[in-house]
C-alpha cells in the first residue's frame, strides 16, 4: 500500500467518482497492489523469510510503500 503520507492520486480519483455517484459515506480511497506467489512445498519459516526479502527489496519500494504477507496452505488454486 502507499504510505499514508504519500499522495495517491489514483485513490483520490476513485473516491471522487464514488462521491459523485452519491456514496457520500466514502471518506477516502487508497489503491495498492496484491501479488499471489505460489511455491513448491510447505510454508516454512525459511520460505517466509525469503518471501519477506522479495517483498521488501523488489515487490515494494520502502520509500513510498508498505507491505504485509499472508500465507495460506491451500490446494494451489
Amino acid at each position: 500500500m502507499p504510505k499514508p503520507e504519500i499522495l495517491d492520486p489514483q485513490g483520490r480519483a476513485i473516491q471522487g467518482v464514488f462521491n459523485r455517484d452519491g456514496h457520500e459515506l466514502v471518506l477516502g480511497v487508497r489503491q495498492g497492489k496484491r501479488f499471489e506467489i505460489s511455491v513448491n512445498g510447505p510454508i516454512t519459516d525459511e520460505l517466509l523469510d525469503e518471501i519477506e526479502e522479495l517483498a521488501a527489496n523488489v515487490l515494494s519500494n520502502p520509500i513510498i510503500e508498505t507491505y504485509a504477507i499472508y500465507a495460506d496452505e491451500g490446494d494451489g488454486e
Partner: protein
Amino acid sequence: MTTRVGVITFPGTLDDRDAATAIALGGGEAVPLWHKDKDLNGVDAIVLPGGFSYGDYLRAGALASVSPIMDAVVDSAKEGMPVLGICNGFQMLCETGLLPGALTRNENLNFICRPELITITNTKTSWTNFFQPNTELLIPIKNGEGCYQISDEGLKNLEAKGLVVARYNNNPNGSKNDIAAICNEAGNVVGIMPHPEHAVDGLVGAGVDGLGFFWSIAGVTV
C-alpha cells in the same frame, strides 16, 4: 581524448538513440550497452535513457533496476563514474538507491508531454558544470510518473546540501519543492525528469537548451 559515454538499452527503452545523438552532438562518443551485459566496456560515463523499461510493470524503473548490468552501474557510480538517469532512468536510479526518493503518478494523473521551463540550481555536478547558476532552460517533459516524492527529513537533507540540480518554474506534476532533477552528494550521479536529449537540435525540438548537459560530460567549456 573523447569521453566515451555508455547508453544502456533495456526492453522498452525509447530514448537510447536520441541520447546517443545528443552525446555525439555534445562532443562525446556514445557506446551502446545492453541490459544483459555484465561489464561496461570501459566507458567513462553512463546514460540511463528514458522510455518504459519492462512496460513500467511493478513500478516504473523497478525491474530495470535489478537487470544484470545494474550491478556494474551501481558499483561504478559509487566509485565516482558519472551517471545520468533521464526520466525512466531517474526512476531506475531511485529504485537502486543511488538517489533518494521516488517518482510517483503525476498529481493530476495525466501523461504530460510538452516543453517546460526549468532552472538549474546546482552547477557543480558532472552533468551541469557547463551552466551558470540559475540558468533557465526550456526542456521537454514526457511522463506519467514524474511526481518526485521524498520524506520530509530527506527533503531537508537535499535542500541543506544543495543536491537539487533543477527545479520547474511552473510545477507540472506535484513534485515536492518543484524538483525536476537531483544529484548524489558526490555530484557524479544525476537524475532528471525532463529530457535534455530531446532539446539538442533546433530542427526537431523545442530548442537546443539540453546540449549543456552533454557539453558538461564531454568537458566542453566556454
